[in-house]
């Protein structure tokens, strides 16, 4: 049995299996263990030169919706190619921070720099090298899977590139299907392919696995990790799941009381599993930190209240 599947099973059963082969666990950054990824998700592309990630920095970033303050004086530095997870209670502003980074919303004060420069962007604030995945896949139901992935690509070679991206997420055989017939996990894989086809240097993930069942989540985490290792983009993941954050991120940030309350580096070998030494300690420490924080006044509001306000 492939070690990947072993781990999957171990997590599913809740049993703690020690890592199968400790020495094989540490991939060198930028040199992904292609064998692992290929075993589960066949790759048809030759490994392209990894487009290196964007360096992101924010300076005194603040955002309020009406009278309600969401973020205050966020100073954040993300290294190129770093995988950062942001955790926090519902309504703490973690999604808002991601929307600011994506250019979907404008900050009230402060600024964001990408690679040291203020944003180069189109009129509506979207950078072509930044892509975002939402909690819902947000596929266009009237376009086939491959046309969804090719959205925004030039018609010339768009279709072929879309098929290549679909192959990377293991869904090339569903290219002609309507999104409506896919499962939730498959839809998110299509959304991932749609983001990857643009070869982003910064991938923003807004709880993309939040609605998936436990097994599909683990599969998707593996997929995101292997694609991140392969392409070398900077990744920012917003999640409410502390163990997901630890499983994927180089750094976990906790947002509380509108600020970054906690910044934890995770130095565990990849791919990670819950049975790994140190995983549980990290998890416990983060959970303690989340739980000791007094429930903020906005915690009772629906998770996406801020998003709705923007859209209306």
């Amino acid at each position, binding site marked *: 049995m492939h070690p990947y599947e072993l781990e999957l099973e171990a997590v599913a059963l809740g049993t703690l299996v020690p890592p199968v082969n400790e020495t094989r666990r540490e991939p060198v950054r930028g040199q992904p263990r292609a064998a692992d990824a290929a075993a589960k998700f066949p790759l048809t592309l030759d490994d392209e030169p990894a487009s290196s990630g964007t360096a992101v920095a924010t300076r005194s970033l603040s955002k309020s919706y009406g009278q309600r303050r969401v973020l205050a004086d966020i100073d954040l530095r993300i290294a190129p190619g770093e995988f950062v997870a942001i955790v926090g209670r519902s309504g703490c502003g973690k999604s808002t921070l991601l929307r600011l980074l*994506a*250019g*979907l919303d404008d900050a009230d004060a402060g600024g964001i720099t990408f690679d040291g420069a203020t944003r180069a962007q*189109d*009129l*509506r604030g*979207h950078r*072509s090298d930044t*892509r*975002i995945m*939402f909690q*819902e896949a*947000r596929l*266009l*139901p*009237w*376009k086939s899977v491959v046309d969804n992935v090719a*959205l*925004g690509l030039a018609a010339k070679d768009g279709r072929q590139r879309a098929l290549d991206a679909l192959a990377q997420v293991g869904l090339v055989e569903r290219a002609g299907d*309507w*999104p*409506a017939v896919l499962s939730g996990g498959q839809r998110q894989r299509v959304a991932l392919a*749609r983001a990857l086809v*643009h070869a982003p240097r910064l991938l923003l993930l807004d709880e993309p696995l939040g609605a998936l069942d436990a097994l599909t989540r683990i599969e998707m985490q593996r997929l995101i990790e292997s694609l991140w290792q392969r392409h070398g983009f900077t990744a920012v993941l917003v999640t409410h799941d502390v163990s997901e954050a630890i499983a994927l991120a180089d750094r976990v940030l906790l947002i509380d009381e509108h600020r970054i309350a906690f910044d934890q580096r995770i130095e565990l070998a990849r791919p990670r599993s819950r049975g790994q030494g140190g995983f549980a300690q990290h998890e416990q420490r983060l959970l303690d930190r989340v739980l000791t924080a007094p429930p903020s006044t906005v915690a009772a509001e629906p998770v996406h209240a801020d998003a709705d306000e923007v*859209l209306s």
Partner: protein
Amino acid sequence: MRRGTAFALPAVVLIAWELASASGWLSTRVLPAPLAVLRAFWTLSLSGEIWHHVAVSTWRALSGFALGGSLALVLGLLTGSSRAAETLLDSTLQMLRNIPPLALIPLVILWFGIDESAKLFLVSLGVFFPIYINTFHGIRSVDKGLIEMARSYGLSGWPLYRDVILPGALPAILVGVRFSLGFMWVILIVAETISAQAGIGYMTMNAREFLQTDVVLVGILLYALLGKLADLLSKGLERWWLRWHPGYQAADARA
């Protein structure tokens, strides 16, 4: 078997009707026998008279629909997409919507006389509002998340409209189209019975003058047939254009 059951009731009614007419219990001045209606239809189609009337009526219906429908589509897209256009136009249009088109007939006769343009105007007006309102709401109810996604993927202007907004509004627009196709014939019937030199309405009114109840019935059945055809056409459009839509796939599977 199910199909057979569905047609059982009409068959029984037809037979009873034929028997009632044949026995003289039902006067032909009230209702001609089904066979007489069939015979009238046959004579009229052999002489070619009926096809002339059908062609004239269909032409009126479709040109009125094209005129009113496209105007409604354009205005609906405009007010749906732009707040400024909505403030400017929508309350006026909503006010006009509450006037039944048929209430305008005296005015229309004064404006256009009794020739073709009067009928065209009435049909256009009748089909306008169902399409306008559904287009407006269709545009407004397009998933904001999809628009946000498409924008962040670099779509704007016409590509955003073509790939996201229009397809998203299409189910609602087609509901409007189906509704107005039904309404189109209602308006036309009334318009043609008022004054016309040709058309199904003219044929039936003319037949009434000569107490040809069988021809009157042929006219009525023709309207039913044409209405059904229009409905089938719009259903076909829905099946083709909304084939991605789970709701329409389910309907497909049942049919």
